[in-house]
């Protein structure tokens, strides 16, 4: 698969591109050919056996009659009418009915070499007559000759045959019918008999290859004279609706962008994404190793989408729908009602079931049918098992682009192999991803816990924090993690840390009350001391007062007795008065 190419937009048809075209109605082909096959000219469709040539031609004819009102004539050289109508019935076309309605004519031309002897000059006028009859009987505008090269097996005179073929192509052009001629792929040339030298207007090559046991079908427009066209190999698939070609449209990075935000279904994750969740129409990558909870995050997103009344398409490549529903119910994400309401579509298939293009094509188809608002693919890493790494990458590129161009929010889940660098996605799509959420398991102290962080998220102020991501019976919860010298602490270590902190806090509280109590006690003691001192002081004071009173009393008694003695001796009073003055 080649590099992305830029296709001229169909919305702006080039003014120079005036070649009239007949739309095929084959999904995707008209985009690549910018309108269809050259009208009124033959187109060669070649490829190896089993590549879908007959079907391609038949679908061109049937869709022409059904959708564009152009009747068709099918000239089958290999299959009978019965075989053909059986083959196309599996694709939802009723060939017999269309033949009965006169919209399609089928003529089986059988050329058996063993029955034929050539004896001189001849021409293929019989073929022309039958062709003319087939065209006229239904008024055909489209003709298929499948496989013209069978004629080469029927006739030995190659010179006549080649001359007649040249005449046939001229005749077809003169009749003005849009024709498809199929041819078997040959060695070193497009067709075994070199039919490409007669058909010079448009050559389409179909290819069916098997690599690593996975088959893919490719289509390439080898040449389209007078018109621009996509030149890459385009993958195509054949399913119950016919052929689907996958055009690589709008790889021009000119998608519409939305500023609308949609919730991830996990409030705290929304908070990490700047408060409002993802942008609508953005592409989100959830990556992580096995068992980190990627599917749980996607299921939450699916749930949130349906809760908003929007449609969500969930492509599970690892679990069956029933298993997914059961597992998600265990974390209280009940998706079953949404499935019942038709808002959620769960699709499960093994990635190795088809080639990688088939997956892309079927996703295209499902998206076109279901018209979801959100597409979740879980996981994308499995695609690399369906093809090579480069193919898987190119496919995702196309897918992301396709979804973006339709404003569909896409969530991709990626399983990263253990031991890889966290930031390394094995499918290098990171540059296309707008929001990248990384889940990692943190193994510490004999425990495995989950951490989540937003690696990048374009256009929003997102958190740089690692959160611990706990899956509980009630759903996903995000917790803070402890960042210590030994790294982040999660799980029971986080719980232990919490316990420790709680214990320390309690101890501190105890200590504080104890201290307070001691202080109170000391104060009480001091107060008691103060009281006893005061009592002592009062006692001393009492004592001194009593002593003073005693002294006074004694002095007064002495004085009295002295006066009495003086009186007895008859001494002068001045001495008494003198002593009194002192």
């Amino acid at each position: 698969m080649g590099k992305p190419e830029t296709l001229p937009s169909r919305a702006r048809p080039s003014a120079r591109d005036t070649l009239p075209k007949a739309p095929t109605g084959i999904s995707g082909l008209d985009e690549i050919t910018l309108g269809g096959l050259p009208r009124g000219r033959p187109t060669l469709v070649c490829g190896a056996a089993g590549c879908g040539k007959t079907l391609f031609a038949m679908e061109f004819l049937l869709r022409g009659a059904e959708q564009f009102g152009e009747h068709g004539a099918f000239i089958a050289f290999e299959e009978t009418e019965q075989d053909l109508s059986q083959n196309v019935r599996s694709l939802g076309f009723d060939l017999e009915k269309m033949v009965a309605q006169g919209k399609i004519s089928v003529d089986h031309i059988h050329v058996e070499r063993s029955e034929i002897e050539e004896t001189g000059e001849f021409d293929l006028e019989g073929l022309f007559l039958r062709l003319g009859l087939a065209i006229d009987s239904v008024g055909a505008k489209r003709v298929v000759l499948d496989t013209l090269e069978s004629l080469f097996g029927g006739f030995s005179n190659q010179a006549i045959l080649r001359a007649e073929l040249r005449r046939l192509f001229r005749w077809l052009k003169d009749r003005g019918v849009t024709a498809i001629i199929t041819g078997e792929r040959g060695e070193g040339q497009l067709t075994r008999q070199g039919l490409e030298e007669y058909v010079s207007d448009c050559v389409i090559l179909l290819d069916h290859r098997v690599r690593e046991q996975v088959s893919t079908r490719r289509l390439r427009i080898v040449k389209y004279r007078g018109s621009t066209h996509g030149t890459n190999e385009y993958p195509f698939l054949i399913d119950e609706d016919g052929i689907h070609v996958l055009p690589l449209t709008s790889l021009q990075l000119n998608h519409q962008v939305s500023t609308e935000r949609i919730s991830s279904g996990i409030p705290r994750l929304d908070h990490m994404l700047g408060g409002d969740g993802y942008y609508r129409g953005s592409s989100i990558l959830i990556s992580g190793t096995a068992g980190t909870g990627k599917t749980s995050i996607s299921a939450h997103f699916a749930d949130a989408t349906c809760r908003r009344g929007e449609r969500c398409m969930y492509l599970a490549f690892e679990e069956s729908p029933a298993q997914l529903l059961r597992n998600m119910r265990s974390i209280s994400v009940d998706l079953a009602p949404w499935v019942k309401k038709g808002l959620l579509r769960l699709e499960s298939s093994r990635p190795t079931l088809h080639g990688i293009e088939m997956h892309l094509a079927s996703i295209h188809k499902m998206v076109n049918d279901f018209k979801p608002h959100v597409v979740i693919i879980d996981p994308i890493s499995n695609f690399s098992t369906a093809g090579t790494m480069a193919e898987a990458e190119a496919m995702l590129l196309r897918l992301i682009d396709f979804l973006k161009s339709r404003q569909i929010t896409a969530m991709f889940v990626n399983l990263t192999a253990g031991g890889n660098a966290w930031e390394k996605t094995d499918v290098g799509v990171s540059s296309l991803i707008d929001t990248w959420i990384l889940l990692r398991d943190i193994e510490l102290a004999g425990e495995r816990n989950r951490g989540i962080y937003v690696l990048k998220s374009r256009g929003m102020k997102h958190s740089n924090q690692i959160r611990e991501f706990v899956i509980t019976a009630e759903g996903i919860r995000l917790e803070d993690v402890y960042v210590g010298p030994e790294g982040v602490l999660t799980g029971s270590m986080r719980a232990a840390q919490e316990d420790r902190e709680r214990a320390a806090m309690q101890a501190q509280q105890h200590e504080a009350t104890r201290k307070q109590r001691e202080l109170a006690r000391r104060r009480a003691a001091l107060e008691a001391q103060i009281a006893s001192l005061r009592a002592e002081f009062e006692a001393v004071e009492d004592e001194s007062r009593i002593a003073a009173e005693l002294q006074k009393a004694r002095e007064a008694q002495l004085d009295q007795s002295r006066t009495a003695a003086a009186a007895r001796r008859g001494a002068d009073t001045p001495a008494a008065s003198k002593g009194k003055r002192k």
Partner: protein
Amino acid sequence: MSTRRNGAAAEEKWELRLYTAGQTPKSLAAIKNLKKVCEEHLAGRYEIEIIDLLKNPRLAKDDQIVAIPTLVRKLPDPVRKIIGDLSDTERALVGLQLKQVS
């Protein structure tokens, strides 16, 4: 010329049908050559039907006619087809199984 007559075939009736498309030189040559071969080898027990596909194009489908002119040996069985203007008499005889490949 060594022609080998099949004992049983000698009594058989030959039914031949020649498809042409208009009066082209090739068609006329084929008619002339066919009559000559029949007269020489199957005198009296052959029937030739000439069908002009320009007039009846639908008949081309029945005998799976692609090349013109085509001679179809309807009887005796099996059906044989010989294309061309029968100018190569040797090959025409081989084709009609009137002569074995030498």
